[in-house]
């Protein structure tokens, strides 16, 4: 290249790099806005609520007196509801995704089903609440219980689990499947021995993202009748007498963290607002812990897989 052509090329590269820089700057600003907003929210909540965090806050039932009010029934309720949600959403979601990916013939009918699964993710959560009220609470007779709440939230996060599982299954190269089939494995053998274990990281990520969303859902839980003031716990799942395992807690009345927070914020006393902020911190911590667990599990499982 002669000198002028070289100089022109250098000018061109300089101009292109300027766009590189501009975009990087814009990206950092956007990221900063998001991060700052989140940090500001957390700090604001912490300033309000952190002083209220003490061991008795976690072990007290709600009360008319703000200083004695605690989140015991709320966080236990949230934990139990999440258990039911996971137990319902994971098997159904994973099985549905496996069927759609591995077994279902590719025709118009399955295409319609697939489109509608993604549509389900956009349905407002209060609609799920209404569905659950009619179906679980009244038609099936589960009543206003942890079981109904768990099943409702399971329906809510089902699309997330299904889509995440499908993406995870799709990312498995067909060469691995062919290797399994070539050794004489059946479709179920290949699915159980290879497809599911290798897509576990993606499946778990989807499950935990779904649960992190479910933990904060208030509208459907209110609709099916979670109580806002509960001064007792559901019966314990483990008993001292035969058969040692009880499912009574499934049908007991309950409350969850978001509802408790809502209840406190709607009271006039400022002290209750402080309680609400503290409860918000706890809820945030629960959500972030679940996400951290997801990231950790995914990291561990991804170490074994390289493609």
């Amino acid at each position, binding site marked *: 290249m002669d000198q002028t052509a070289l100089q022109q090329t250098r000018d061109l590269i300089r101009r292109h790099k300027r766009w590189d820089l501009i975009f990087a700057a814009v990206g950092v600003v956007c990221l900063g806005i998001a991060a700052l907003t989140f940090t500001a929210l957390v700090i604001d909540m912490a300033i309000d609520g952190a002083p209220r965090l003490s061991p008795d806050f976690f072990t007290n039932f709600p009360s008319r007196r703000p200083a004695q009010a605690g989140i015991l029934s709320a966080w236990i309720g949230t934990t139990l509801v999440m258990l039911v949600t996971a137990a319902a959403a994971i098997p159904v979601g994973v099985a549905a995704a496996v069927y759609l990916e591995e077994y279902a013939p590719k025709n118009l009918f399955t295409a319609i089903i697939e489109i509608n699964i993604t549509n389900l993710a956009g349905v407002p959560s209060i609609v799920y609440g209404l569905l659950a009220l009619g179906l679980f609470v009244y038609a099936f007779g589960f009543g206003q219980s942890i079981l109904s709440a768990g099943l409702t939230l399971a329906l809510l996060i089902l699309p997330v689990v299904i889509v995440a599982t499908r993406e995870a299954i799709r990312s498995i190269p067909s060469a691995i499947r062919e*290797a399994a*089939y070539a050794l004489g494995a059946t479709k179920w053998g290949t699915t159980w021995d*290879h497809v599911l274990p290798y897509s576990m990281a993606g499946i778990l990520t989807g499950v935990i993202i779904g649960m992190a969303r479910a933990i904060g859902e208030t509208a459907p839980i209110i609709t099916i009748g979670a109580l806002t003031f509960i001064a007792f716990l559901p019966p314990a799942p483990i008993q001292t007498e035969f058969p040692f395992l009880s499912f009574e807690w499934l049908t007991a009345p309950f409350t969850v963290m978001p509802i408790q927070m809502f209840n406190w914020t709607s009271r006039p006393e400022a002290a209750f607002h402080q309680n609400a902020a503290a409860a918000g911190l706890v809820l945030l911590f629960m959500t972030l812990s679940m996400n951290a667990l997801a990231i950790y599990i995914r990291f561990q499982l991804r170490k074994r897989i390289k493609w």
Partner: protein
Amino acid sequence: MSKVTDGPLNTSLLSVKAETKNLSFHYGSFNALKGINMPLYEKKVTALIGPSGCGKSTYLRCFNRMHDLYPGNRYDGEIRLYPDNTNLLHAHVDPIEVRMRISMVFQKPNPFPKSIYENVAYGLRVRGERKTSIVDEKVEQALRNAALWDEVKHRLKDLAFNLSGGQQQRLCIARALATEPEILLFDEPTSALDPIATASIEELIADLKGKLTILIVTHNMQQAARVSDYTAYMYLGELIEFDATDTIFIKPKNKATEDYITGRFG
């Protein structure tokens, strides 16, 4: 046993392990194989050569019914497996059963993301082998036959992905050998490997000669000449010539074959 009476290498009695009778194959509406009649001699290495797209991999994958995995494919004709004279392509023959008898090694090494031991053991587990001692023994035997045992015996629990490309391919061969197949199919096993790894695989195949019936697809003519007893030249879905390797490479009977071999074409 059938006696073959023309060409070298066959004044002795050669046993036919399998043969295709008028085998045709369609990918949807595309006719990929056109009436192929070809024997596969027992415990001999048969190579399939031909330019890209001539149907050699398609032909190979008919033997273990791999085409069944994808919709829109159709087999015509027969593949007879001896000594029981089963038509592998028959609608009532279970493809899983076919794959239990005939193993395959693929072009790109595809070990499972599991340990070396578990990779080789998988075929045995599929066949219901539960006793650890037997699985251990067969895994070791297969790894020895694949010339990989010495390199991995101290790290059987390591992930298969940590092996080099050539080692991974030998692992895939061990995996295929562990189930003691009647026929071993190789689909261009060395085209994704470097020359040194290629040489070790070719050495391995030469070792297996005489112990196992092998059908190998290769686009590398020199490899076919080095490794095989019989060679088939295919072009555009048809079998142009099938004969002993020496005949094909020294004095082919068909002009098209000669053109391909000498590089005038393809």
